[in-house]
């Protein structure tokens, strides 16, 4: 007995040690990754060039001309590194980035763009990439980086949000970013970058879309340095004091909406009539799911961007109906053709998913499975309809299907860059092929920005996710 206890005891002891070791070792590694870069290695352009050709040339091109073979599939397009214009720096407007700025971009990537993070590359290699990227443009010999002083972060406790809001108004941020920061300012539709390409003002409420970080320090850096190559100017001389600039940075942080990325849409059961009014307190109990939207729409080999990048969904249901509450940001309200629109796309039989492919590519062929569609158009906002379609009506010029359709009750409002749309569906639409209330249905959401010429296949799409009736 004793020996068994002893053995058990030692085994447990070993197990604990092992567990501790397992926990501690990655912690050490994690620490070393997060440390500020230690000493830079001496530049080795041959090593940098080899790493560049392996990792970077595919998008940025062999000479840094932004003409890599994948480049045309991307919006925004990969930077033309030879031009020496870099967006995300800690240096004065028009001056080159520091080595650390370049290292950061390579290491953390630019979320929201197609620039990935290269954490998998050892630090040493990333420094060699910095040196090699610098060799691609003469700007690094012609000019020195001029660091900007960001002042002292007052910390969230001392942030003066009221002052920050005043500064937001005084500096005219709303001209492009809109009064609520949704990217719907009056000058937003005509913005172009240095190369004459249309560019959007950031939706400041979507922190996840800020390329180089959304913390107040990052916002300060953008304010003080401007985003070179884009309309975003430097406010270094325009903001009277660093305190005011920090107040503004914290104010911008305060308008960021925390997304709830989720793999399911949880529809909650409600008793009685479902609330068509979006502000109804009955919605408080319906959890919100945020979905990212994207498209892969090409014309003549070049990708065309779509406007809407995320949507929030809530759902309530009773015995007979299910009501969806959708909100999304769209800088322009388009009630004429082509109208703003949204669709709830249901895959009636989950087994069809592999045939359907992604919502982005549907319908991939003439034989693609037909799907159930609850479609809402802004030109007839209370005339949403339900239909079953192969999507052939979704050609470039036609958004509407000439198939038998069933009207749905719907209601919509647009304020300050945001659509709120209610679409009510009979529950039996979710119960196809006789299955008694299915608890989970495969659903996707598509959104069109009419102002961007989006119709038919040119639309922003979510991934397929599960709609679960709780």
């Amino acid at each position, binding site marked *: 007995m004793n020996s068994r206890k002893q053995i058990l005891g030692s085994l447990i002891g070993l197990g604990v040690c092992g567990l501790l070791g397992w926990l501690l070792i990655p912690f050490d590694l994690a620490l070393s990754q997060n440390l500020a870069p230690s000493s830079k290695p001496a530049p080795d352009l041959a090593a940098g060039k080899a790493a560049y050709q392996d990792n970077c040339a595919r998008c940025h091109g062999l000479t840094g001309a932004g003409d890599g073979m994948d480049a045309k599939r991307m919006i925004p397009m990969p930077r033309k590194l030879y031009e020496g214009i870099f967006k995300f720096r800690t240096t004065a407007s028009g001056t080159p980035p520091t080595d650390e700025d370049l290292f950061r971009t390579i290491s953390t990537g630019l979320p929201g763009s197609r620039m990935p993070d290269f954490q998998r590359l050892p630090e040493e290699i990333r420094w060699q990439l910095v040196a090699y990227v610098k060799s691609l443009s003469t700007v690094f010999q012609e000019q020195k980086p001029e660091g900007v002083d960001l002042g002292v972060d007052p910390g969230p406790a001392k942030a003066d949000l009221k002052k920050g809001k005043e500064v937001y108004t005084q500096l005219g941020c709303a001209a492009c970013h809109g009064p609520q920061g949704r990217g719907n300012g009056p000058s937003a539709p005509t913005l*172009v970058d240095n190369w004459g390409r249309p560019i959007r003002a950031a939706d400041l409420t979507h922190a996840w879309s800020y390329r180089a970080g959304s913390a107040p320090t990052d916002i300060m850096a953008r304010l003080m340095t401007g985003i070179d190559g884009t309309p975003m100017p430097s406010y270094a001389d325009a903001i009277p004091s660093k305190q005011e600039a920090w107040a503004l940075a914290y104010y911008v942080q305060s308008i960021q909406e925390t997304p709830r990325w989720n793999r399911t849409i949880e529809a909650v059961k409600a008793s009685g009539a479902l609330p068509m009014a979006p502000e109804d307190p009955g919605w408080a109990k319906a959890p919100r799911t945020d979905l990212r939207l994207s498209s892969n729409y090409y014309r003549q080999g070049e990708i065309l961007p779509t406007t809407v990048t995320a949507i929030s969904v809530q759902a309530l249901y009773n015995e007979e109906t299910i009501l969806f509450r959708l909100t999304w940001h769209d800088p322009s309200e388009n009630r004429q053709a082509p109208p703003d629109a949204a669709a709830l796309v249901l895959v009636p039989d989950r087994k069809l998913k592999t045939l359907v492919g992604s919502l982005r590519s549907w319908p991939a062929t003439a034989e693609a499975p037909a799907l159930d569609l609850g479609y809402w158009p802004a030109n007839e906002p209370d005339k949403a309809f339900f239909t079953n379609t192969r999507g052939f009506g979704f050609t470039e010029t036609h958004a509407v299907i000439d198939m038998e359709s069933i009207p749905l009750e719907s209601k919509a409002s647009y304020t300050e860059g945001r659509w709120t749309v209610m679409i009510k569906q009979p529950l039996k639409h979710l119960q196809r092929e006789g299955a008694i209330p299915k608890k989970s249905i495969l659903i996707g959401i598509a959104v069109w920005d009419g102002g961007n010429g989006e119709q038919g296949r040119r639309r922003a799409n979510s991934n397929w996710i599960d709609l679960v009736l709780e």
Partner: protein
Amino acid sequence: MQARSRNLPLVIASLLIAHSALAAGYAPEAQAFGGATLNGKATLEGAAPARDKIKMSADPVCLGQHKEPVLSEEVIANNGALQNVLVYVKDGLSGKSFPAPTTPVVINQEGCQYRPHVFGIQVGQPLEIVNSDSTLHNINAQPKVNRRFNIAQPIKGMKTTKAFDKPEVVVPFKCNVHPWMNAYAAVLDHPFFGVTDSNGSFTLSGLPAGTYTLEAWHEKYGTQTQSVTVTEGETKQVNFSFKTK
């Protein structure tokens, strides 16, 4: 001892007078390096395109400052006289250096337009950028050779001073908030440049004797060059004729 102390105030006074005379005389733009003058006209052959109306509705502050419709400044031709043509000495001044003036060239944002629309400035000469409007403007300068900048001027009365350290024809300026706003600056290392007025006329004065290549630049119709020789103190006429394509 006494004689010196009586003379001292006189010496000081005359020194002061001499200094201020020199200071007053040293106004670089007025300083003539020579006595020759080149003047002439820029004309447009063919029917000038109609000037588009600028829509300022996106900014009520801009809209509110204009009673009349505002017209595009890309081509301003009055009965063939082409305005806003920049004429400058492109070649022929080698070996001479011209100090940068300290008085700034002022570019003003007024009524949501740049004033002037086209101008010349010397290398190293200060450029004072002023916002006279109660609305946000950003000055997005996109030179190819000089240092770029993009700065915000949200407050009326804000002034920012910049300078260019290399010759460049031309440096474009734009405002992203108000996309119709454009200006062009020719940065030169000498003071022999001018911009044609509403009569299409320009004057380059104070030139030393020599043979020069003159270039005329227009934002839509491109450039024209001519060679001209002047003797000391001579006045010569040089005309440029642009064609609508």
